[in-house]
């Protein structure tokens, strides 16, 4: 794995577009950062390596957004949640293809890398979402 790519949020989204969920691991204290960051908040180390993370996890909490910002109004109502991945780290995102009645805490979900991208001037990243495992 190359260690040249900067440990930034933008790089995290670049890996997502390649179908990889990547976190930064601090080489000094071992803390895993999702999203990656250039300065470890635990030990202030600046040396990291990329580590691939499983995109499977369980739903910790969820909501259905009915009143949306202008950019998302065509999608509303839509479900979003916070997912705890298999390694314990947490990540939020939209949940696609699950009926509202079937949403429940503990539902098993898997990340979908090629999801619901809405065009915008900045940032031109691809969005991920979660689908039922």
């Amino acid at each position, binding site marked *: 794995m190359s260690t040249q790519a900067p440990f930034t*949020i933008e790089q995290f*989204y670049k890996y997502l577009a390649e179908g990889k969920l990547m976190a930064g691991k601090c080489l000094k204290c071992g803390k895993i950062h999702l*999203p990656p960051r250039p300065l470890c908040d635990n030990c202030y180390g600046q040396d990291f390596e990329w580590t691939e993370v499983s995109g499977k996890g369980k739903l*910790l*909490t*969820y*909501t*259905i*957004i*009915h*009143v*949306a*910002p*202008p*950019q*998302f*109004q065509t*999608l509303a*109502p*839509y479900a*979003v*949640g*916070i997912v705890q991945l298999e390694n314990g780290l*947490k*990540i*939020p*995102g*939209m949940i696609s293809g699950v009926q*509202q009645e079937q949403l429940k*805490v503990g539902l098993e979900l898997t990340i979908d890398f090629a999801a619901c991208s809405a065009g915008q001037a900045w*940032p031109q*990243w691809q*969005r991920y*979402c979660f689908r039922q495992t």
Partner: protein
Amino acid sequence: MNGKPLVSIVSAGLSKFGKHEGLFAREIFSLAVKEAFDRCPKLDPKRDIKALFIGHMGESYEHQGHMGAAAADWAGLLGIPATRTEAACASSGAALRSGVYAVLSGLADVVMVGGVEKMTHRTTAEVTEYLAMASDYPFEQFHGITFPGLFALMATAHMNAYGTTQEQMAKVAVKNHHHASLNPKAHMQKEITVENVLASKMVAWPLKIYDCSLITDGASCIILTKPEIAGKFTDMPVHIVGSGQASDTIGLYERKTLTSLQSAKLAAKTAYEMAAVKPEDVNLAEVHDCFTFAEIMAYEDLGFCKVGEGGKLVVEGKTALGGRLPVNTSGGLKAKGHPVGATGVAQAYEMYLQLTGQADKRQVKDAQVGLTHNVGGSGATATVHVYRSDQA
């Protein structure tokens, strides 16, 4: 620290909360300022006030940043150092905390702290977008998560962990609308029922429109002095005896827990210790009910009840006027309104009225110790202040 006054409030002003069509934020602020000056004839503003801190959340509403200087100008205070503080919905809680720093530093004997927001000229979609700016961009806003959405995520987690219900949340709205009906400056003046709340339009499940605070225009200000000189300005000062502020992750998803706000718990711990006060000593509180669920969580974070029992506390009526610990006698953000930058100091204004016996129909009898709790964003900032009446 042992409960001695840190600073004293010698005057306070609040604009009417509601729609101020055709007014700019700075013009609304001047209405609050005028009331504060009128209440305190012994204060010579141009001579005495040495600094201004003003909470203001968003440049987007009026395409206007740099509110410190603009507010100082419209308050007739040009020349003094004037600084805008921004901590989302806790912007003026942070202004208050900054005022405490300024007075305690010895650099200023008398300071004005305030807050303002002008919101109602924008559409709900625009306001939703501007408010969301106070949350994490790359993982929350970018994925369409709104502010009500973030509190809904916490509410869902709390319901799942403790069995909190939508009916309990609705009770918070009913109580705060009742309180607002006794406050002529509140945005909402009408009572509502639990059925009204439950039948109202969904915003972010389980939060409905009547679970949400209001899009409101308004401004607030108070005058702080060193406690030793408060008597020069008024016979009825209110003392701030505890001041806490704390931070947490900008993204809700990174928090250790989704059912409480660590920032609020930390800020409360600091403020309680400074004030030498325990939660059971508090006679009344203004808490950050940006959503009904947030008030339930605040009870727990502030130690007013056990964890998981916040819903029960409101249903039993203990936090209503006439109860053991009235909460949000002003109507709260829910019904008085939530001009975001103005809210933290508006809470202090209500404490000033209550602890000087000027709260009229909503007066809490024999109140001596009060608390305010102001939350920024989904809890990345919280400020907590403890107040004592001069008679205490």
